[in-house]
């Protein structure tokens, strides 16, 4: 009897904890399906009286929302792919090759973990101005490729792989690149998944730099576009909670898809690196 009580108490706590994390999202989702008049009515109720998807069509009509989504998708996917390619190549060199200056070079790269984008946005802005990249999606993609967390995770992973396969391949006359691409990479799926997850989320959510780098409304990414909803709230009466919430809900769908697909790697990832992508 006591045992049963204890276990039902456990589930009660579990439900309570989940509710704390889900409540704000659920409330936002529900309100996104209410007409604005009902959102701004008192008292609030959980089930929409006049269920409507008009907020969703409104946000697509009023803002270049689809363009924002497309820009977000392009920059995130391109950035993530480039990170996977460049970082795995470089990390492989750090983890498995013997060359002079390796320690200093690796040390310099990893030391940059200390310096977040906030501490170098201004020179980065000037650099991109010089390269005529400002106000292009390239200006968002390329700086994101200089990702250090991925180097950190992949280097220690490559370093830990056993030598036997590599040696056998060398004896067979495999080139270093083929050893890397056909033997080592397929073994690295867990580490690559962790990196994919971390970089996808950090690129998708990236805010400060895209806001600075992009001027045209049509070239903005979702986080920057969405932040504008609130900006209009401060300055003029056009702001509506319904449309803003609808825009928010659509923007988190890709996050949730990637999260559900790669969540277990994420847990391993932060547990082993402890660092934000």
């Amino acid at each position, binding site marked *: 009897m006591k045992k049963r009580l204890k276990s039902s108490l*456990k589930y009660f706590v579990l439900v309570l904890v989940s509710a704390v994390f889900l409540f704000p999202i659920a409330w936002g989702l529900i309100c996104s399906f209410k007409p604005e008049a009902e959102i701004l009515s*008192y008292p609030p109720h959980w089930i929409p009286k006049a269920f409507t998807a008009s907020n969703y069509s409104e946000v697509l009509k009023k803002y270049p929302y689809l363009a924002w989504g497309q820009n977000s998708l392009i920059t995130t996917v391109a950035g993530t792919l480039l990170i996977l390619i460049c970082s795995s190549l470089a990390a*492989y060199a750090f983890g498995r090759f013997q060359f*002079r200056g390796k320690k200093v070079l690796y040390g310099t790269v990893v030391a940059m973990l200390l310096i977040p984008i906030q501490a170098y946005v201004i020179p980065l802005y000037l650099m991109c101005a010089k390269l005529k990249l400002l106000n292009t999606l390239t200006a968002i993609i390329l700086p994101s490729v200089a990702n250090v967390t991925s180097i950190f995770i992949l280097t220690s992973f490559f370093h830990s792989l056993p030598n036997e396969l*590599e040696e056998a391949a060398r004896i067979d006359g495999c080139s270093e690149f083929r050893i890397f691409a056909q033997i080592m990479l397929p073994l690295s799926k867990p580490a690559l998944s962790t990196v994919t997850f971390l970089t996808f989320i950090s690129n998708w959510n990236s805010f400060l730099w895209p806001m600075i780098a992009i001027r045209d409304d049509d070239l903005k990414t979702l*986080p920057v576009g969405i932040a504008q909803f609130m900006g209009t709230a401060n300055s003029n009466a056009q702001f509506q909670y319904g449309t803003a919430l609808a825009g928010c809900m659509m923007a*988190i769908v890709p996050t949730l898809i990637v999260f559900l697909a790669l969540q277990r790697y994420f847990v391993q990832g932060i547990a082993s690196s402890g660092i934000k992508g």
Partner: protein
Amino acid sequence: MLNTQSSASAAGACRPKKSRTKSPWGSQGKVAALFLAPYLIIFTIFRFGPSVAGIFISFTKWDLAGKPVFVSFDNFKRLLTDSNFHVSLLNTLIFFVLTLPPLILFSLLLAIFLNQKMHGRNVGRAIAIIPYVLIPAVVGIIWNWMYDDNFGILNYYLKQMGSPSVHWITSSKTALASVAVVVVWTYIGYNMVLFLAGLQGIPNELYEASQIDGASKTQTFFKITLPMLKPITSMVITLTLVNTVQLFDQIYVMTNGGPGTSTLTMVQYLYTSAFQNYELGYGSTIEIAILIILVLIIWIQNRLMKSEEM
């Protein structure tokens, strides 16, 4: 690394004709350079170069339109007497003090709770992490809606319970704390994962031994679990501090630094100085200040960790 060397010589042995040319960068220097090149080029242009250049820019007066003028330590002197910067520094400190205790307490409790064997614990863990992966701007809007003075659900519940409504983010008294709640909500799951890793890293033998010695559950917790979690806790403290220093997205969306300067953070101030007032030199000086603070934090943490080991 020893292994890599031996495999390199094995490769040399099997292909004696194409023996590697001796390069000053070591036997695998050339291959390594090819593998490293794509990353290092981008890294140098977009991360390392700008980080170093920032130091030089911080010694200049630079309006976006004009050319940089060397002004020696003027920007740093101005920073020391700039009341806005002082406010942003103080806000950062208050924010840290507000968020750290609940973050440590709740994420540790949650980690212990979700480390038990029970159905649904993986679902629970996943749900706890969701806030961390959401776009901060989205999180800001969702919470702003709950915080709304007139129609927000939080004030509705407060009124139901008979207490007066709170001007969560529209009063300079409560705005910083209200944003702190959002940040705690966001990062609990993330820190929980760190604590979970810490809990799972405690060797089982310790628990077995304490069981044999007849220790109670409370004793085991305070004498084994907590002390063994010290390194992770110190890491969580450092990460929280680092995240607080970098805080921007949520603040920008929720309060834009206001009301007044009540939620002004260092990054918000940096953004305003550099990209709204176009003072690039002075903005860089704020960046350098942020960097110095970050380096100090990490340095202190390392010192503390080392002194504990000895």
